[in-house]
Protein backbone atom coordinates (compact mmCIF):
# COMPACT_ATOMS: atom_id res chain seq x y z
CA UNK A 1 0.00 0.00 0.00
CA UNK A 2 2.73 2.41 0.99
CA UNK A 3 4.74 1.96 -2.15
CA UNK A 4 1.58 2.29 -4.22
CA UNK A 5 1.05 5.69 -2.65
CA UNK A 6 4.62 6.74 -3.39
CA UNK A 7 4.22 5.38 -6.92
CA UNK A 8 1.20 7.66 -7.32
CA UNK A 9 3.09 10.67 -6.02
CA UNK A 10 6.02 9.80 -8.26
CA UNK A 11 3.82 9.80 -11.37
CA UNK A 12 2.23 13.10 -10.37
CA UNK A 13 5.65 14.64 -9.90
CA UNK A 14 6.60 13.18 -13.29
CA UNK A 15 3.60 14.89 -14.89
CA UNK A 16 4.60 18.19 -13.30
CA UNK A 17 8.19 17.70 -14.48
CA UNK A 18 7.05 16.93 -18.06
CA UNK A 19 4.86 20.01 -18.03
CA UNK A 20 7.79 22.09 -16.78
CA UNK A 21 9.99 20.70 -19.58
CA UNK A 22 7.37 21.60 -22.20
CA UNK A 23 7.06 25.11 -20.77
CA UNK A 24 10.86 25.46 -20.72
CA UNK A 25 11.10 24.53 -24.39
CA UNK A 26 8.34 26.99 -25.30
CA UNK A 27 10.09 29.80 -23.43
CA UNK A 28 13.43 29.35 -25.21
CA UNK A 29 14.21 32.53 -27.16
CA UNK A 30 14.72 30.92 -30.55
CA UNK A 31 12.93 32.24 -33.64
CA UNK A 32 11.85 35.48 -32.07
CA UNK A 33 10.33 36.97 -35.22
CA UNK A 34 6.60 36.98 -35.81
CA UNK A 35 4.81 35.42 -38.74
CA UNK A 36 5.60 31.85 -37.78
CA UNK A 37 2.84 29.25 -37.87
CA UNK A 38 1.68 28.16 -34.42
CA UNK A 39 2.55 24.63 -33.34
CA UNK A 40 0.46 22.18 -31.33
CA UNK A 41 -0.44 22.93 -27.71
CA UNK A 42 1.62 20.13 -26.23
CA UNK A 43 0.70 20.89 -22.63
CA UNK A 44 -3.01 20.37 -23.30
CA UNK A 45 -2.32 17.14 -25.21
CA UNK A 46 -0.16 15.92 -22.33
CA UNK A 47 -3.00 16.49 -19.86
CA UNK A 48 -5.62 14.86 -22.08
CA UNK A 49 -3.52 11.79 -22.89
CA UNK A 50 -2.60 11.19 -19.24
CA UNK A 51 -6.16 11.68 -18.01
CA UNK A 52 -7.41 9.05 -20.44
CA UNK A 53 -4.70 6.51 -19.69
CA UNK A 54 -4.31 6.95 -15.94
CA UNK A 55 -6.84 9.38 -14.48
CA UNK A 56 -5.66 9.03 -10.91
CA UNK A 57 -2.17 10.20 -11.84
CA UNK A 58 -3.49 13.64 -12.80
CA UNK A 59 -5.91 14.95 -10.16
CA UNK A 60 -7.88 18.07 -10.98
CA UNK A 61 -5.87 20.23 -8.58
CA UNK A 62 -2.59 19.29 -10.29
CA UNK A 63 -3.96 20.08 -13.75
CA UNK A 64 -5.42 23.39 -12.57
CA UNK A 65 -2.15 24.40 -10.88
CA UNK A 66 0.02 23.46 -13.89
CA UNK A 67 -2.19 25.23 -16.41
CA UNK A 68 -2.63 28.31 -14.21
CA UNK A 69 1.15 28.65 -14.06
CA UNK A 70 1.32 28.13 -17.83
CA UNK A 71 -1.26 30.91 -18.31
CA UNK A 72 0.93 33.25 -16.30
CA UNK A 73 4.13 32.31 -18.12
CA UNK A 74 2.76 32.34 -21.66
CA UNK A 75 1.05 35.77 -21.58
CA UNK A 76 -2.46 34.31 -21.95
CA UNK A 77 -5.56 35.82 -20.31
CA UNK A 78 -5.21 34.43 -16.80
CA UNK A 79 -7.57 31.65 -15.85
CA UNK A 80 -9.65 31.17 -19.00
CA UNK A 81 -7.59 28.48 -20.74
CA UNK A 82 -7.14 26.74 -17.37
CA UNK A 83 -10.89 26.64 -16.76
CA UNK A 84 -11.58 25.23 -20.23
CA UNK A 85 -8.84 22.59 -19.98
CA UNK A 86 -10.13 21.54 -16.54
CA UNK A 87 -13.61 21.11 -18.04
CA UNK A 88 -12.11 19.12 -20.91
CA UNK A 89 -10.12 16.80 -18.65
CA UNK A 90 -13.08 16.21 -16.37
CA UNK A 91 -15.19 15.30 -19.41
CA UNK A 92 -12.53 12.82 -20.55
CA UNK A 93 -11.97 11.52 -17.02
CA UNK A 94 -15.64 10.55 -16.78
CA UNK A 95 -15.26 8.62 -20.02
CA UNK A 96 -11.83 7.14 -19.33
CA UNK A 97 -13.37 3.90 -18.12
CA UNK A 98 -15.20 3.38 -21.41
CA UNK A 99 -12.24 4.59 -23.44
CA UNK A 100 -10.14 1.68 -22.22
CA UNK A 101 -11.88 -0.62 -24.68
CA UNK A 102 -12.44 1.66 -27.64
CA UNK A 103 -10.04 1.54 -30.59
CA UNK A 104 -7.49 4.34 -30.80
CA UNK A 105 -9.16 6.04 -33.77
CA UNK A 106 -12.41 6.61 -31.88
CA UNK A 107 -10.48 7.86 -28.86
CA UNK A 108 -8.60 10.26 -31.14
CA UNK A 109 -11.91 11.47 -32.57
CA UNK A 110 -13.32 12.14 -29.12
CA UNK A 111 -10.20 13.99 -28.03
CA UNK A 112 -10.30 15.98 -31.28
CA UNK A 113 -13.85 16.99 -30.43
CA UNK A 114 -12.85 18.09 -26.93
CA UNK A 115 -9.87 20.08 -28.28
CA UNK A 116 -12.09 21.80 -30.84
CA UNK A 117 -14.61 22.64 -28.11
CA UNK A 118 -11.87 24.13 -25.92
CA UNK A 119 -10.45 26.24 -28.77
CA UNK A 120 -13.90 27.43 -29.86
CA UNK A 121 -15.02 28.26 -26.32
CA UNK A 122 -11.78 30.18 -25.80
CA UNK A 123 -12.31 32.23 -28.97
CA UNK A 124 -15.98 32.85 -28.17
CA UNK A 125 -15.40 33.99 -24.60
CA UNK A 126 -12.49 36.22 -25.59
CA UNK A 127 -14.66 37.69 -28.33
CA UNK A 128 -17.50 38.21 -25.86
CA UNK A 129 -15.26 40.10 -23.47
CA UNK A 130 -13.69 42.11 -26.30
CA UNK A 131 -10.16 40.84 -25.69
CA UNK A 132 -7.85 41.16 -28.70
CA UNK A 133 -6.97 37.71 -29.92
CA UNK A 134 -5.10 36.20 -32.83
CA UNK A 135 -6.83 35.92 -36.17
CA UNK A 136 -9.21 33.12 -37.02
CA UNK A 137 -6.80 31.55 -39.51
CA UNK A 138 -3.92 31.25 -37.06
CA UNK A 139 -6.18 29.76 -34.36
CA UNK A 140 -7.47 27.22 -36.88
CA UNK A 141 -3.94 26.21 -37.85
CA UNK A 142 -3.09 25.79 -34.16
CA UNK A 143 -6.21 23.69 -33.66
CA UNK A 144 -5.41 21.37 -36.58
CA UNK A 145 -1.79 21.03 -35.47
CA UNK A 146 -2.89 20.14 -31.93
CA UNK A 147 -5.35 17.50 -33.13
CA UNK A 148 -2.78 15.96 -35.48
CA UNK A 149 -0.12 15.86 -32.77
CA UNK A 150 -2.25 13.82 -30.34
CA UNK A 151 -0.91 10.35 -31.34
CA UNK A 152 2.67 11.63 -31.08
CA UNK A 153 2.08 12.90 -27.56
CA UNK A 154 0.39 9.62 -26.58
CA UNK A 155 3.45 7.70 -27.72
CA UNK A 156 6.15 10.04 -26.46
CA UNK A 157 4.67 11.18 -23.20
CA UNK A 158 2.73 8.05 -22.43
CA UNK A 159 4.25 4.82 -23.60
CA UNK A 160 7.77 6.18 -23.34
CA UNK A 161 7.36 6.84 -19.62
CA UNK A 162 5.68 3.51 -19.06
CA UNK A 163 2.08 4.64 -19.03
CA UNK A 164 -0.48 2.36 -20.57
CA UNK A 165 -4.20 2.14 -20.31
CA UNK A 166 -5.33 -0.12 -17.49
CA UNK A 167 -5.86 -3.62 -18.92
CA UNK A 168 -8.42 -6.08 -17.52
CA UNK A 169 -6.84 -8.09 -14.74
CA UNK A 170 -4.84 -5.19 -13.42
CA UNK A 171 -7.75 -3.87 -11.44
CA UNK A 172 -10.36 -5.74 -9.49
CA UNK A 173 -14.12 -5.21 -9.66
CA UNK A 174 -13.97 -2.15 -7.46
CA UNK A 175 -11.38 -0.44 -9.66
CA UNK A 176 -8.51 -0.83 -7.20
CA UNK A 177 -5.21 -1.81 -8.68
CA UNK A 178 -3.96 -5.32 -7.82
Amino acid at each position, binding site marked *: MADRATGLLGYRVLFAALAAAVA*FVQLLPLNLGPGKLPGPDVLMLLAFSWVIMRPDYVPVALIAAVFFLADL*LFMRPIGLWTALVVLGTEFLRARSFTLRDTPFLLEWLLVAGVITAVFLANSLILGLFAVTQAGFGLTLIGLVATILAYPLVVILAGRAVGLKKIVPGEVDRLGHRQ
Partner: protein
Amino acid sequence: MAVGGLVLVLLAVFLLWRIDSPRAERFRAQIVDTIVPNLEWALVPVTEAVDLVRGFQSYAALQRQNRELRDELQRMKAWKEAALQLEQENAKLLDLNKVRLDPALTVVTGQVIADSGSPFRQSVLLNVGAARDGIKDGWAVTDGLGLVGRISGVGRNSSRVLLLTDSASRVPVTIQPSGQRSLLTGDNTALPILDFIEAPEEVRPGDRVVSSGDGGVFPAGLLVGNVVLARDGRLRLRLTADYERLEFLRVLRNQPGETIAPPEGLVGPLLPAPSVALTEEDLQPEPADG
Protein backbone atom coordinates in the same frame (compact mmCIF):
# COMPACT_ATOMS: atom_id res chain seq x y z
CA MET B 1 -18.84 19.55 -7.32
CA ALA B 2 -15.38 20.60 -6.29
CA VAL B 3 -14.63 20.75 -10.01
CA GLY B 4 -17.52 23.15 -10.57
CA GLY B 5 -16.22 25.37 -7.78
CA LEU B 6 -12.71 25.25 -9.24
CA VAL B 7 -13.95 26.22 -12.71
CA LEU B 8 -15.96 29.10 -11.24
CA VAL B 9 -12.91 30.33 -9.32
CA LEU B 10 -10.82 30.21 -12.51
CA LEU B 11 -13.46 32.09 -14.49
CA ALA B 12 -13.61 34.65 -11.69
CA VAL B 13 -9.83 35.10 -12.02
CA PHE B 14 -10.34 35.63 -15.75
CA LEU B 15 -12.99 38.29 -15.03
CA LEU B 16 -10.61 39.91 -12.58
CA TRP B 17 -7.93 39.97 -15.26
CA ARG B 18 -10.33 41.53 -17.72
CA ILE B 19 -11.62 44.16 -15.31
CA ASP B 20 -8.45 45.16 -13.48
CA SER B 21 -5.82 44.34 -16.05
CA PRO B 22 -2.90 46.38 -14.59
CA ARG B 23 -3.11 44.66 -11.23
CA ALA B 24 -3.35 41.23 -12.81
CA GLU B 25 -0.43 42.01 -15.11
CA ARG B 26 1.63 43.15 -12.11
CA PHE B 27 0.85 39.83 -10.46
CA ARG B 28 1.90 38.04 -13.63
CA ALA B 29 5.13 40.04 -13.78
CA GLN B 30 5.91 39.09 -10.18
CA ILE B 31 5.35 35.39 -10.81
CA VAL B 32 7.37 35.42 -14.03
CA ASP B 33 10.07 37.35 -12.21
CA THR B 34 10.34 34.69 -9.48
CA ILE B 35 10.41 31.76 -11.89
CA VAL B 36 12.13 32.62 -15.16
CA PRO B 37 15.34 34.41 -14.11
CA ASN B 38 16.14 31.45 -11.87
CA LEU B 39 16.18 29.34 -15.01
CA GLU B 40 18.63 31.66 -16.73
CA TRP B 41 21.40 29.18 -15.97
CA ALA B 42 19.52 26.66 -18.14
CA LEU B 43 17.87 28.89 -20.74
CA VAL B 44 20.97 30.71 -21.92
CA PRO B 45 23.21 27.61 -22.36
CA VAL B 46 20.45 25.70 -24.15
CA THR B 47 19.84 28.62 -26.50
CA GLU B 48 23.53 28.87 -27.19
CA ALA B 49 23.79 25.09 -27.62
CA VAL B 50 20.96 25.11 -30.18
CA ASP B 51 22.65 27.96 -32.01
CA LEU B 52 25.89 25.98 -31.93
CA VAL B 53 24.17 22.90 -33.38
CA ARG B 54 22.79 25.06 -36.17
CA GLY B 55 26.30 26.34 -36.73
CA PHE B 56 27.80 22.88 -36.89
CA GLN B 57 25.34 22.00 -39.58
CA SER B 58 27.28 24.12 -42.03
CA TYR B 59 30.90 23.90 -41.03
CA ALA B 60 32.14 25.65 -44.14
CA ALA B 61 29.79 28.53 -43.52
CA LEU B 62 31.19 28.75 -40.00
CA GLN B 63 34.75 29.01 -41.27
CA ARG B 64 33.81 31.66 -43.79
CA GLN B 65 31.94 33.58 -41.15
CA ASN B 66 34.97 33.37 -38.88
CA ARG B 67 37.13 34.92 -41.55
CA GLU B 68 34.58 37.65 -42.25
CA LEU B 69 34.30 38.43 -38.55
CA ARG B 70 38.04 38.74 -38.23
CA ASP B 71 38.12 41.21 -41.12
CA GLU B 72 35.24 43.13 -39.62
CA LEU B 73 36.97 43.20 -36.25
CA GLN B 74 40.02 44.76 -37.86
CA ARG B 75 37.86 47.43 -39.46
CA MET B 76 36.03 48.00 -36.20
CA LYS B 77 39.30 48.62 -34.43
CA ALA B 78 39.95 51.49 -36.80
CA TRP B 79 36.43 52.83 -36.09
CA LYS B 80 37.01 52.44 -32.39
CA GLU B 81 40.06 54.67 -32.65
CA ALA B 82 38.11 57.24 -34.61
CA ALA B 83 35.25 57.07 -32.07
CA LEU B 84 37.62 57.61 -29.15
CA GLN B 85 39.14 60.64 -30.83
CA LEU B 86 35.73 62.05 -31.60
CA GLU B 87 34.63 61.45 -28.04
CA GLN B 88 37.58 63.40 -26.72
CA GLU B 89 36.96 66.20 -29.17
CA ASN B 90 33.28 66.22 -28.24
CA ALA B 91 34.11 66.44 -24.55
CA LYS B 92 36.42 69.37 -25.17
CA LEU B 93 33.86 71.23 -27.26
CA LEU B 94 31.06 70.58 -24.78
CA ASP B 95 33.24 71.80 -22.03
CA LEU B 96 33.85 74.96 -24.04
CA ASN B 97 30.13 75.41 -24.41
CA LYS B 98 29.51 74.49 -20.76
CA VAL B 99 26.69 72.25 -21.93
CA ARG B 100 25.62 69.37 -19.74
CA LEU B 101 24.05 66.36 -21.40
CA ASP B 102 20.84 65.25 -19.84
CA PRO B 103 21.77 62.42 -17.42
CA ALA B 104 18.27 61.06 -17.90
CA LEU B 105 19.18 59.74 -21.37
CA THR B 106 21.36 56.84 -20.27
CA VAL B 107 20.93 53.22 -21.24
CA VAL B 108 20.76 49.93 -19.40
CA THR B 109 21.87 46.91 -21.42
CA GLY B 110 20.02 43.68 -20.85
CA GLN B 111 20.20 40.19 -22.31
CA VAL B 112 17.21 38.32 -23.69
CA ILE B 113 16.59 35.24 -21.57
CA ALA B 114 13.17 34.03 -22.62
CA ASP B 115 10.46 34.32 -25.20
CA SER B 116 6.80 34.97 -24.55
CA GLY B 117 6.02 31.29 -24.98
CA SER B 118 3.05 31.88 -27.23
CA PRO B 119 3.03 32.31 -31.00
CA PHE B 120 0.41 35.06 -30.71
CA ARG B 121 2.28 37.28 -28.28
CA GLN B 122 5.48 38.99 -29.39
CA SER B 123 7.43 39.81 -26.30
CA VAL B 124 10.78 38.91 -24.76
CA LEU B 125 12.07 38.80 -21.22
CA LEU B 126 15.20 40.74 -20.26
CA ASN B 127 17.41 39.95 -17.32
CA VAL B 128 17.37 43.52 -15.96
CA GLY B 129 14.72 44.50 -13.49
CA ALA B 130 13.56 47.09 -11.02
CA ALA B 131 15.74 46.18 -8.06
CA ARG B 132 19.25 46.67 -9.41
CA ASP B 133 18.68 48.70 -12.55
CA GLY B 134 15.57 50.72 -11.76
CA ILE B 135 13.66 49.75 -14.89
CA LYS B 136 10.23 51.32 -15.11
CA ASP B 137 7.18 50.51 -17.20
CA GLY B 138 6.98 52.24 -20.55
CA TRP B 139 10.66 52.84 -21.23
CA ALA B 140 11.80 52.46 -24.81
CA VAL B 141 14.00 49.52 -25.81
CA THR B 142 16.35 49.50 -28.80
CA ASP B 143 18.87 47.00 -30.11
CA GLY B 144 21.42 49.52 -31.28
CA LEU B 145 19.98 49.53 -34.82
CA GLY B 146 16.47 50.73 -34.16
CA LEU B 147 13.51 50.70 -31.81
CA VAL B 148 12.50 47.23 -30.69
CA GLY B 149 9.63 47.81 -28.27
CA ARG B 150 8.78 49.08 -24.84
CA ILE B 151 8.93 47.77 -21.31
CA SER B 152 5.57 46.41 -20.20
CA GLY B 153 5.82 44.50 -16.96
CA VAL B 154 8.67 44.80 -14.49
CA GLY B 155 9.82 42.42 -11.78
CA ARG B 156 12.71 42.57 -9.37
CA ASN B 157 15.22 40.88 -11.67
CA SER B 158 13.48 40.73 -15.01
CA SER B 159 11.38 42.88 -17.26
CA ARG B 160 9.22 42.14 -20.25
CA VAL B 161 9.62 43.96 -23.55
CA LEU B 162 6.51 44.21 -25.72
CA LEU B 163 7.83 44.10 -29.29
CA LEU B 164 6.51 46.48 -31.93
CA THR B 165 5.12 43.54 -33.89
CA ASP B 166 2.74 42.43 -31.12
CA SER B 167 -0.91 43.15 -31.79
CA ALA B 168 -1.20 45.23 -28.62
CA SER B 169 1.67 47.56 -29.46
CA ARG B 170 0.85 51.16 -30.42
CA VAL B 171 3.64 53.70 -30.86
CA PRO B 172 3.23 57.25 -32.20
CA VAL B 173 5.73 57.92 -34.98
CA THR B 174 6.69 60.65 -37.40
CA ILE B 175 7.28 59.94 -41.07
CA GLN B 176 10.10 61.95 -42.51
CA PRO B 177 10.59 64.04 -44.57
CA SER B 178 6.90 64.95 -44.82
CA GLY B 179 6.75 65.19 -41.02
CA GLN B 180 3.39 63.46 -40.77
CA ARG B 181 2.25 61.81 -37.56
CA SER B 182 1.12 58.23 -37.62
CA LEU B 183 0.43 55.38 -35.21
CA LEU B 184 2.56 52.27 -35.56
CA THR B 185 0.20 49.39 -34.88
CA GLY B 186 1.51 45.86 -34.54
CA ASP B 187 -0.58 43.06 -36.00
CA ASN B 188 1.49 39.93 -35.31
CA THR B 189 3.24 40.04 -38.69
CA ALA B 190 6.80 41.08 -39.49
CA LEU B 191 5.64 44.44 -40.92
CA PRO B 192 3.56 46.52 -38.52
CA ILE B 193 0.92 48.89 -39.93
CA LEU B 194 1.18 52.67 -40.13
CA ASP B 195 -2.26 53.89 -39.16
CA PHE B 196 -4.05 57.25 -39.18
CA ILE B 197 -1.86 58.91 -41.79
CA GLU B 198 -3.54 62.16 -42.76
CA ALA B 199 -2.08 62.51 -46.25
CA PRO B 200 -0.97 59.07 -47.46
CA GLU B 201 -0.14 60.45 -50.91
CA GLU B 202 2.75 62.41 -49.40
CA VAL B 203 4.32 59.26 -47.98
CA ARG B 204 6.56 57.23 -50.28
CA PRO B 205 8.03 53.75 -49.73
CA GLY B 206 11.52 54.10 -48.32
CA ASP B 207 10.74 57.11 -46.14
CA ARG B 208 12.46 57.08 -42.80
CA VAL B 209 10.25 56.76 -39.73
CA VAL B 210 11.23 57.93 -36.24
CA SER B 211 9.40 57.98 -32.93
CA SER B 212 7.54 61.23 -32.40
CA GLY B 213 7.51 61.48 -28.62
CA ASP B 214 3.79 62.28 -28.60
CA GLY B 215 2.20 62.05 -25.20
CA GLY B 216 5.58 62.20 -23.50
CA VAL B 217 5.70 58.43 -23.46
CA PHE B 218 8.69 57.68 -25.67
CA PRO B 219 11.70 59.84 -26.33
CA ALA B 220 11.44 61.46 -29.74
CA GLY B 221 13.79 60.86 -32.62
CA LEU B 222 14.42 57.13 -32.21
CA LEU B 223 14.83 55.43 -35.57
CA VAL B 224 12.12 52.84 -36.08
CA GLY B 225 12.28 51.79 -39.73
CA ASN B 226 11.41 52.52 -43.33
CA VAL B 227 8.03 52.70 -45.03
CA VAL B 228 7.10 49.89 -47.41
CA LEU B 229 4.01 49.43 -49.51
CA ALA B 230 2.81 45.93 -48.68
CA ARG B 231 1.14 43.51 -51.01
CA ASP B 232 -2.24 44.25 -49.49
CA GLY B 233 -1.88 47.89 -50.47
CA ARG B 234 -1.38 49.24 -46.94
CA LEU B 235 1.54 51.31 -45.79
CA ARG B 236 3.62 49.21 -43.45
CA LEU B 237 6.95 49.58 -41.76
CA ARG B 238 10.09 47.56 -42.28
CA LEU B 239 11.84 47.71 -38.91
CA THR B 240 15.56 48.45 -38.83
CA ALA B 241 15.97 46.39 -35.68
CA ASP B 242 17.02 42.80 -36.35
CA TYR B 243 14.14 40.81 -34.88
CA GLU B 244 15.64 37.46 -35.83
CA ARG B 245 18.70 38.11 -33.68
CA LEU B 246 17.56 39.85 -30.54
CA GLU B 247 20.18 39.16 -27.93
CA PHE B 248 21.43 42.28 -26.20
CA LEU B 249 18.91 45.08 -25.90
CA ARG B 250 19.32 48.59 -24.57
CA VAL B 251 16.66 50.09 -22.34
CA LEU B 252 16.59 53.87 -22.61
CA ARG B 253 16.09 55.53 -19.29
CA ASN B 254 13.73 58.38 -19.96
CA GLN B 255 11.70 60.28 -17.48
CA PRO B 256 8.18 61.13 -18.63
CA GLY B 257 7.77 64.43 -20.39
CA GLU B 258 7.13 67.47 -18.25
CA THR B 259 3.45 68.07 -17.73
CA ILE B 260 2.20 71.56 -17.00
CA ALA B 261 0.58 71.41 -13.57
CA PRO B 262 -2.62 73.39 -13.06
CA PRO B 263 -1.83 76.91 -11.85
CA GLU B 264 -2.54 76.24 -8.19
CA GLY B 265 -0.75 79.30 -6.96
CA LEU B 266 -3.04 81.73 -8.74
CA VAL B 267 -6.01 81.37 -6.48
CA GLY B 268 -5.14 81.30 -2.80
CA PRO B 269 -6.65 78.99 -0.22
CA LEU B 270 -10.11 79.77 1.10
CA LEU B 271 -9.99 82.02 4.13
CA PRO B 272 -11.87 80.73 7.17
CA ALA B 273 -15.34 82.19 7.63
CA PRO B 274 -15.39 85.00 10.21
CA SER B 275 -16.66 83.67 13.54
CA VAL B 276 -17.55 87.09 14.89
CA ALA B 277 -20.05 89.30 13.08
CA LEU B 278 -18.44 92.31 11.47
CA THR B 279 -19.56 95.70 12.82
CA GLU B 280 -19.80 99.00 10.91
CA GLU B 281 -16.54 100.06 12.45
CA ASP B 282 -14.68 97.08 11.07
CA LEU B 283 -15.93 97.80 7.61
CA GLN B 284 -14.64 101.38 7.54
CA PRO B 285 -11.25 101.71 5.91
CA GLU B 286 -8.40 102.33 8.29
CA PRO B 287 -7.43 106.00 8.50
CA ALA B 288 -4.14 106.51 6.79
CA ASP B 289 -1.20 107.69 8.87
CA GLY B 290 0.14 111.12 8.46
